[in-house]
């Protein structure tokens, strides 16, 4: 008997919760970003699991697009973190409290 699909979905839910807890608990912008990456991966796992369950490839395509967008998001996000770090000298998100560049 194969592993039930629900186990993959549960694993994905746990990973998503750990990612969001990481976002909520951490104050360093890089650590928050890692939490966001974990959340994205958890959602991708859900998409692939549902793709397997429904015997359709659309879920895998969606996960693929999500990876592309995540790569673009990481590039821009890290550039913003570097820019903020240059301006304020810290990666603490509580210190970056002005929108002025």
């Amino acid at each position: 008997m194969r592993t039930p699909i629900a186990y993959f979905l549960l694993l994905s839910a746990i990973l998503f919760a750990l990612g969001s807890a990481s976002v909520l608990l951490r104050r360093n912008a890089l650590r928050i970003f890692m939490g966001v990456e974990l959340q994205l991966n958890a959602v991708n796992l859900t998409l692939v699991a549902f793709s397997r369950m429904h015997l359709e490839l659309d879920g895998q395509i969606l996960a693929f697009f999500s990876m592309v967008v995540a790569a673009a998001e990481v590039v821009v996000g890290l550039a913003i973190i570097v820019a903020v770090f240059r301006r304020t000298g810290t990666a603490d998100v509580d210190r970056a409290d002005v929108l002025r560049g």
Partner: protein
Amino acid sequence: MPLDNVVFWVFAPLSIATAIGMMVVRNAVHAALFLVVNFFTIAVMYLLLDAPFLFAVQIVVYAGAIMVLFLFVIMLLGVDRGDPLGERLFGQRTTAVILAVAIVAEVATAIRAGVGFATTAPEGFEAANPGGNPSALADVLFRDYFFPFEVTSILLIVAAVAAMVLALRRSRSVTQREIEEHEGDDLEAYAMAPPGAPESMRGGTR
């Protein structure tokens, strides 16, 4: 016990353990390394779900490119001093843990109602993958999802340009008159200071 059950029960706890490690460890480099292992375990899950193409993409894109970028920025910023501890908001930590547990409970209830814990994946995925998974994916991607695919190419270009614009250190051009005015100053410190920095940072001794 069939092989993919064994693989699942080895890698699923490893995945959760590395995610917890990523969350609690203080050093940012250690957290990034935990995250790499976590990405590998998720890649193994893709393999169990008959998605070998995404398995490869996950390792190349996430464990390769994205994590290298993360580690590069961590080294660049030098934030291996660790995260400042202590709560800014009262009860932030407790609330975060409660919310995380609530998400898991909620999704578990939804899974139980919608999918059922005993439902296994139906057979016949090979029939949905004529010519192998990458070939079948390419078929769907370049036929049904061709327009989104082209849009992502624009997205990637915009992201690359945006990253360059954001990370570029703006250097302003200096006129001959300014050089004469500032003769004898510490010009190196002046040039290295960010624009709009206070005069003290620029080593201004006029």
